[in-house]
């Protein structure tokens, strides 16, 4: 029988400083129960949670599919893909494998895990930060989950599902809603937690860092790209890339913004770019773009107009699509870098060989999260070399870009190792292809 602790009573109302402190202390106090569970028991409990999201009649999934289109603006099919990808990556075999890979040598008595983690989530892509919460619980770290202001639903459902399906974890995870940027609450949270995992804009992370958390793992702004080998520039690849681009309107760090295409001929490149623009436009029916703010619309407009203007005035740029705010593919053959404004606008850079993508990506050092590769497996070593040189944290088949595995070294952090030890998990070799 687990005693009821009123400090853990679920709340979606914003917290006061006193309640936040009490909640943090209550969750921290549950740590002994969590660490008393064997790793196998934790995996089993978390697997039950994942399974509860993947059943046909999952109440959590049903509610998420109803609420998240409103909070995120993404259409229900995109939310459905996000949820399926997320929870399929959190089944027992993956949790066990990551635990074995990262914490096999970890002695929790010699180096106790942090007593409390605070997860400060972002609202850009559904599920961002859920891996971190599951990882913390798997590593024996009680967790407070602070939802993003614009997307409070999935974190609430996450905590609800854990508490309902895995009662042995009910005292070690709680929702902590407050308005980010509220100095007193931010400082209290930073003081109470031993470890903060924060997602979102660099300015948000800087503000959190200024609150003096004991340890801060920064999951800041990054982008991804598609790397396409010569013979893979097919209509099927264009369709796959368009879907990876459209799923979350390029708002995630795993969203492709740049396409490095190994060129067969300029005519083939143009054909591929045009097909890609057509595929993006066609997806507007199945996966309509989230509504844009005035500022976002203007940014997109400015980008498209500027590229068209440059093309008109002789720069080696071709704009495919982009009429009336529709998606575009900008083929850039200039020596300068052109950055996407996101919201389904891709920049395609033709390269003579895959290895030539490296100088193209050099100005983006430290900004690249993932590379989706389309090409023959016997050229994977070349793609892997590009990924290592670009400092990417993930290399995967193009169609898997938005479906990361639990072991993904997100922002360069080892999923579990970075939680229990002061290591960033920086890659000095190419990321695994998965």
């Amino acid at each position, binding site marked *: 029988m687990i005693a009821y602790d009123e400090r853990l009573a679920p709340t979606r109302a914003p917290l006061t400083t006193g309640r936040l402190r009490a909640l943090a202390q209550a969750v921290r106090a549950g740590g002994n129960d969590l660490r008393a569970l064997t790793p196998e028991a934790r995996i089993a409990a978390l697997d039950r949670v994942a399974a509860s999201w993947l059943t046909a009649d999952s109440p959590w999934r049903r509610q998420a599919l109803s609420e998240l289109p409103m909070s995120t603006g993404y259409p229900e099919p995109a939310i459905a893909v996000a949820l399926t990808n997320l929870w399929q990556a959190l089944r027992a075999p993956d949790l066990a494998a990551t635990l074995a890979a990262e914490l096999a040598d970890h002695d929790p008595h010699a180096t106790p895990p942090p007593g409390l983690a605070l997860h400060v989530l972002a609202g850009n*892509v559904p599920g961002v930060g859920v891996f971190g919460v599951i990882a913390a619980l798997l590593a024996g770290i009680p967790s407070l989950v602070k939802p993003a202001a614009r997307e409070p639903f999935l974190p609430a459902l996450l905590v609800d599902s854990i508490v309902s399906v895995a009662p042995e974890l009910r005292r070690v995870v709680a929702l902590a809603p407050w308005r980010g940027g509220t100095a007193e609450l931010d400082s209290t949270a930073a003081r109470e937690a031993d470890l903060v995992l924060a997602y*979102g804009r660099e300015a948000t992370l800087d503000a959190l860092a200024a609150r003096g958390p004991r340890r801060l793992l920064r999951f800041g*702004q990054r982008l991804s790209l598609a790397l396409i080998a010569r013979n893979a520039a097919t209509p099927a690849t264009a369709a796959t890339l368009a879907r990876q681009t459209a799923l979350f309107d*390029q708002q995630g760090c795993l969203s492709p913004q740049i396409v490095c295409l190994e060129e067969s001929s300029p005519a083939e490149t143009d054909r591929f770019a045009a097909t890609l623009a057509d595929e993006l436009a066609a997806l507007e029916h199945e996966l309509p773009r989230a509504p844009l703010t005035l500022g976002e619309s203007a940014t997109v407009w400015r980008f498209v107009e500027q590229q068209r203007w440059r093309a008109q*005035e002789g720069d080696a740029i071709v704009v495919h699509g982009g009429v*009336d705010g529709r998606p575009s593919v900008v083929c850039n053959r200039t020596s300068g870098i052109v*950055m996407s404004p996101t919201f389904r606008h891709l920049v395609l850079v033709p390269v003579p060989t895959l290895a030539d993508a490296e100088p193209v990506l050099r100005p983006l050092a430290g900004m690249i999260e993932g590379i989706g590769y389309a090409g023959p497996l016997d050229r994977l070593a070349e793609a892997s070399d590009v990924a290592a040189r670009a400092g990417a944290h993930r290399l995967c088949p193009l169609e898997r870009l938005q479906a990361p595995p639990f072991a993904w070294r997100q922002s360069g952090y080892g999923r579990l190792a970075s939680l229990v030890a002061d290591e960033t998990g920086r890659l000095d070799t190419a990321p695994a292809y998965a």
Partner: protein
Amino acid sequence: MSHDTNAATQTPDESAGALENQALRRRVLAFIAAPSPEDFDRLALDVHAYQYRANPVYGRFVDRLGRPAPATWRDVPAVPAEAFRLSVLACGPAERVYRSSGTTAGQDRRAHHHVPDVDVYRAAALAGFARTVLPPGVRRRFLVAAPERVSHPASSLGEMVTWLRAAYDGDTIPSFLTDGAVDPERFAHTLDRLDHAVPVVIFAVTSALLRLADWADAHGSRWHTPAGSLIVDTGGCKGYDRDVSRDTILERYRRLFDIVPEQVINEYGMTELASQCYAVGRGPHRPAPWLRTLVCDLTTGREVPPGEIGCLRHVDLANLGSVLAIQTEDLGRVRDGGIELLGRVPGAVTRGCSLLVETTRS
């Protein structure tokens, strides 16, 4: 991309273009001197046709759009204001090149407006001021806290201020802006010594007056400006620490100068535009008759219904030597027969951990 049109080596086409320019110049100047609204459409279409031929960059822009020739001034293809950062948009060699201040875009990405015929700009600036602020022939003492040509030779505002002073000011006290910042002590010293029988025009960038108000608050200073005085401010809160609403600004002016809102006139102009809009007190901005402003949806390019917010598109006959129609990212809506300005479109803010980088160019 400016074109050399040396009279000694002009081709027949160039000669025809020069003649066309002279004819249009006379018509535009005549319109500015005595506007007849029914002539605006024909004149705008003729200016557009001339610019299509004489401004090669604009011609390429129009060709790229591939639309039918405009049937009315509302259909004239408008270049994005951004184009003034990327290209030289002029119908001939520039007599002046005005540059934007570059405070937001960086020095290397400032807009530059190449003006082949400064007289048209001068005529528009003076006539616009005369219609709303002070009739021609009146003399007033100007207290200026704004750029002037001598200190800011590339500033179109500075040029206008210099012309206004030459036309109206019988005194010419040096501007209270020093190296771009207001000198509150010197400004206050002058205000302390105003002759209460002689009205003045305080012409200033808004941020300078707000800084003067801050200084006055800190020093307990207030002034009673002479009856009949006017404040003409411009530039919004650019250069000030924070955004301040127009109502707050008017209230600060009231406390600072003992002046009512009807004595405050806001000027809206752009480096890329030869003409201006003025707003009296809390009223909307009204363009001069030779400037017409549409409120448009940036994405579709179409006008938004009256009262809805959109981005301003200006069609300015006084831009004869560059580009008639310019699509800006300034927000506004139609109100009381004028335009309510609502600032610039805010920049896009990333929604989370996606990376959004402003387009760069090496």
